[in-house]
């Protein structure tokens, strides 16, 4: 059942990525995600995919920690790709200016160009999801807040975001506790009950979860105000780290990646890399 290896949240570690400044990681994540969003250059996307999967390995994150969220994202991704295809199966030929038919099916005629386009979309997911997950799992939420504040976001919002991140594991834990308590009252949520019953039973957990979370929010906000949170326009951060050589290198790398995207834009005359002409 629940133990720490299933918790989706920051846990201290000691690989290279953990040592980086949170601001560095935030900037890297934002720049690289934006770069991947803009470009459809397959070569670039493949390179970033390899990089992000390599970084993921490097961080030594356990599969059990992320399995749930990854499955969820994959499900949405597949759904998304299917819908993109259904709405305009001919989009691929219009952007690549050529048409090589793979399967004849009237409106749903599948072209090599469309497959290539969908493959690029798929690559975009594979590029950015590991990087975002990596950021969430390797960044101390307090340092995250400090870095948000550093790039100009109000400290109240920064702190709210970091508290929210911090409470994901807590809420997961109370969810398990409450779920067990409700099962002990007679709601069968184990595999011995049908799926419908289990979904209905889960609804019974929501009420106490909301109430116990509200109570916790109330307690923490009182505690924060008693220690003067919000009394001044600014605040300092105990955990702020100074920039090290590695941080500058990573930032430079991110900027270079963005520059590459711009150069590719020039070379490809647009967002798309076209191998068909």
């Amino acid at each position: 059942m629940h133990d720490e290896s299933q918790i989706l949240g920051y846990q201290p570690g000691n690989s290279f990525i953990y040592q980086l400044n949170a601001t560095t990681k935030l900037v890297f994540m934002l720049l690289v995600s934006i770069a991947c969003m803009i470009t459809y250059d397959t070569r670039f996307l493949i390179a970033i995919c390899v990089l992000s999967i390599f970084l993921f390995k490097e961080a030594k994150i356990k599969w059990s920690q992320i399995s749930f969220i990854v499955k969820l994202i994959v499900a949405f991704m597949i759904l998304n790709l299917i819908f993109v295809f259904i709405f305009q199966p001919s989009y691929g030929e219009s952007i690549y200016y050529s048409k090589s038919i793979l399967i004849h099916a009237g409106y749903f005629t599948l072209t090599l160009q469309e497959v290539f386009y969908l493959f690029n979309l798929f690559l975009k997911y594979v590029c950015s999801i590991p990087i975002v997950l990596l950021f969430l799992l390797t960044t101390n939420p307090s340092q995250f807040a400090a870095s948000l504040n550093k790039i100009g976001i109000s400290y109240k919002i920064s702190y709210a975001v970091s508290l929210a991140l911090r409470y994901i594991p807590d809420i997961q834990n109370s969810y398990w506790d409450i779920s067990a308590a409700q099962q002990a009252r007679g709601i069968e949520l184990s595999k011995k009950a049908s799926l419908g019953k289990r979904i209905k039973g889960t609804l019974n957990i929501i009420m106490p979860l909301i109430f116990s979370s509200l109570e916790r929010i109330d307690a923490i906000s009182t505690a924060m105000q008693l220690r003067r949170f919000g009394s001044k326009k600014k605040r300092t951060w105990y955990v702020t780290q100074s920039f090290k050589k590695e941080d500058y290198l990573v930032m430079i790398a991110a900027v270079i990646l963005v520059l590459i995207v711009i150069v590719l834009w020039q070379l490809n005359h647009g967002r798309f890399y076209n191998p068909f002409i």
Partner: protein
Amino acid sequence: MTNTIIEFKDFSFQYDSQAEPTLKHLNLAINQGEMLLIAGPSGSGKSTIGHCINGLIPNIDTGNITGECIINGKNIQETNLFDLSFITSTILQDTDSQFIGLTVGEDIAFALENDCQPQNRMKQIVHRWADELGIEHLLKQAPQNLSGGQKQIVALAGVMVDESPILLFDEPLANLDPASGMKTMALINRIQKELNATVIIIEHRLEEVMSQPLDRVILVNDGKIVADKTPNDLLHNNLLEKNGVRNPLYLSALKKAQIDLNQIPDLTSVNALPDDREIARKLQNWQDKITITGEKEETHSLLELKGVGHRYNKLQVHPLHDVTTTINQGDFISIVGQNGAGKTTLCRIICGFISNEGLISFNGDDLKQYSIKERSDKIGYVMQDPNQMISQKMIFDEVALGLRLRGYEENEIQTKVYETLKICGLYPYRHWPISALSFGQKKRVTIAAILVLDPELLILDEPTAGQDWQTYTEIMNFLKQLNQQGKTIMIITHDMHLMMEYTNRSLAFAEGTLIADTDPIKLLTEKALIKKAALKRTSLYELAVKYRLKEPNTFVRAYIDAERDEKHA
């Protein structure tokens, strides 16, 4: 020269949400450098007094104020919360919920961050206080992973950085094991001495707080100050039990032996009592008069544990392991030991909340094959926090939930629910929404909701934590009755007297190991065991030792038997 730092003048306060004033015409003056206790039952208004001193009233908890409350020269109605926070530092009851930082160091620095202190200065201040309080080695840890006593110290360090003149402790002992409670009190006393701070402790556990010298005790009941005396005067005055606060045990024992308390000059601790042959003789006589009831006859086993354990993660230093014991039908068992020793883990294992090593059988049946729900037909578990259990709006529905899920007829449900509500003293409230209940009443609703399912074994996680004396007595007597009707009961507790008075067997845990399984009174005989499991002898034992009674344990047993007889007479 004394200097008044807190002054209430004909002060009344009514919360916006309440129909009656919570505090009524309060007059109270507290001097700089005093250490005092505010005691009283739940709902007496003692916490409300605390909220006035730290500015939560009227800044967060709004309501109607008449009269004046002046804190360090400032009227609370004209001062904002942030300014008051430099004057009063508050340590909340539930330390877990007040930790904001991810590490101990960061949490201690929280107030400094909000004051815009530069990072190197923060580090310096944090290290100074961590060093002062002996938690330097914990600075990089997550506060949630500390023991109860350590959490209390971290919370204290987090407010000490303000160096404010008033320290306010809201029930500091509620969640601590007995040994940590004593240490915390000693620490509070030391800090008070060193800084000449004004220390205000809100607690109903009078005896534990009085282990350190107090200047005054303010006894509050029903929104009024009933007594404002030195501890010694208060104890001579016989006001405590009338106002819902438990007397120190040694005093109750002296009274039972018909010793005139007015003849004893200093009642504040067992050590302060006079060396008087007459007192010793009277105590011994009383002890000899009590006939000790015999122990239970033969039993049959209900729950068997063999090599049971659970490890939450690889980093856990002392996972629960290798617990082997047999719980018999009709046992009333207390599970005791330091915070984090594995007590709650064991209960969760038995109920199937978490997986386990080893073998558990119930009435000879291996439990492994059963889901949580199936186990719940036989084993009822009442969690420590009632808010995690309650899922319905109305009391009746909450208690009926388990029966409805099991497909009982609605009229049968009504009969059963009413019957259970009557046993739990909740029948008059059967049509009430749960939100209107006090914490203690909510706790009883959760007990009722489990009881209605008629489990053979009932497990309760700290049923009396944070409850005042009256609720405590009600809940425990009610459990005692159930036990006498044949229910097997296991409770987790930190209360040594409760353990001895109500339970007939104790399982003591330390660092994930079951270190003792014995009669509760015998458990508190062995010094090594007491230390290992972070337990504490009660003052009854100390009293017997002081007056050189023949068998201190027999004296304790005699007291408990006398107490039981009075309650059930």
